[in-house]
Structure formats: structure tokens, C-alpha cells
């Protein structure tokens, strides 16, 4: 049985696939990077003690940071690929809105951040706001 809705065309699934690739790689990269920065500590404090070189050294010697950057690089090339095929007005808000929600879930699950009612409300408001801003 074929789906009668015109949205479920090959181009729809191609766009969904491109945006999903951005969201998954971006969320993984951001959670890994956030975990790395938390393990390193406040960069302002490190810079006050060891200078800018010390702060850069602290970041570039953290393996978790490179894992995060690798996923963010994948996300970047997924974005470039998507922008080559889709409009910015679709790609940017769709990926930004979805990434906000997936990041809030991932931050609660993996970073054990206190994602309280205030932050969930903010994530939903910003998500809906980005949708309206794109239309």
C-alpha cells in the first residue's frame, strides 16, 4: 500500500535523512564537547593561572574534546551537503529546533544536568519560536 500523502516522497525522505544526520551528529558532538569542557574546568580560571597557552593546552590535550570535535566536523559536512540540496530557511531552523530538544534529552541522560521545568519550557518555547521565525 502506498502512502497517499505527497509529503512522503523520495525528496521528503532525502530531506529528512539529511536533517536527521545533522541532528544526530550535532547532538553527539555537543554532548561530548560539553563533557570535555566540564572535565577540564573553568577556562577563565585556567587562563588566569596558566595564561592563554595553558588554557589551549588544557583543551587540546583532552581526548573527549577530540571525540566531540570529530562528531561536530561530521555535523558540519552534513550541513554543507544539506545546504547544497535544500534551502537555508528549511535546514537551519529544522536542525536548530530539533537539536535543542535532542540536546536537552541527551544533557539530562548523559551529562546529568538539572534540566528542570524552567529549562524544558525554554527549550520548547525556543523550538516553536525558531519554527515561526522560519515561516
Amino acid at each position, binding site marked *: 500500500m502506498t502512502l497517499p500523502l505527497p509529503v512522503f516522497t523520495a525528496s521528503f525522505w532525502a530531506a529528512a535523512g539529511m536533517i536527521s544526520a545533522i541532528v544526530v551528529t550535532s547532538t553527539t558532538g555537543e554532548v561530548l564537547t560539553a563533557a570535555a569542557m566540564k572535565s577540564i574546568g573553568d577556562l577563565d580560571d585556567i587562563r588566569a593561572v596558566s595564561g592563554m597557552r595553558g588554557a589551549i593546552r588544557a583543551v587540546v590535550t583532552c581526548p573527549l574534546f577530540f571525540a566531540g570535535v570529530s562528531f561536530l566536523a561530521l555535523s558540519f559536512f552534513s550541513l554543507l551537503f544539506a545546504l547544497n540540496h535544500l534551502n537555508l530557511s528549511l535546514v537551519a531552523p529544522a536542525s536548530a529546533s530539533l537539536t535543542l530538544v535532542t540536546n536537552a534529552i541527551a544533557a539530562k541522560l548523559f551529562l546529568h544536568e538539572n534540566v528542570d521545568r524552567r529549562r524544558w519550557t525554554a527549550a520548547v*518555547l525556543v523550538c516553536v519560536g525558531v519554527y515561526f521565525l522560519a515561516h
Partner: protein
Amino acid sequence: MAHHTLTPRQYAILGSVALCAPLGDTCLSRGMTQLPAISLAHPLSLIAAVFTPWIAVGIALLIGFFASYLTALSWADLTFVLPATAFGNVIVALFARFWLQEPISWQRWFGIALITVGVGFVANGPSLTERPAPVAEGVEQEQV
């Protein structure tokens, strides 16, 4: 050390996060739409795209964004920093309205209002989740 109240310098870093990301994305979009369609069969074309002017400027802005973003993540939660990135969309829309004189529909004004309220919600809360301080363990060990 947990910072629940942000300093002016920390607000400036969040502002840099908000501004550099959408401006960088806009440059990337302009650069990529000027290029011929790239297929998965020729992935190296994406590497070549990096050296075109608009893409290069976009990447420079995104490097500025990433440096600010990393600094912000070192003293604030991911779920606190991310709405600041989304607030960049509001800044670009206001920039388009008041400097480029572009019309903004009521849907966009509504979106701007929602994002502003959402960012206000987060900004009024704590920037960092409280965790047991590792210093306390050291103090306990010294006491033992």
C-alpha cells in the same frame, strides 16, 4: 566554582556565541548555493568548497563561535548555553528589519517573542548544575 550570576564578560561571550553562529551559517549558505550541485559520489568537492571566499569567511565566523562556545561550556550547562545560540536568529531578524528595512511578518514577530521569552526563562535560572565539590574530598582527606 559554580557561577549562578554571570559577569559582563560572560554575557559578552554568550553574545559572541549568539552573533557568530547565524552570520557564519548565512555566509556558508551564500557560498554553497553559488556552487554546482555536489553528489555523494564526489565527496572531495566538499573539501574544495572550503577554500571559496564566502565559505572561508563563514568558517572564520564559526571558529569565533566555537571558541566562545567552548569558553561558555566551561562555566555553564549545555542546556543553558544552547538557547543563546538560538537567540542569534532573533538578532539576525532584528538586524534585517531595522538596518536592511526588510518586512517581518506577524509569524516572525511571534517567533521572536517566543525565543526571547524562552531565553529569558533560562537566563533567570542557575547557569550550572550544582554537584558535590571535588575540593571537599581533598579537605576530608587532609582532615583524615
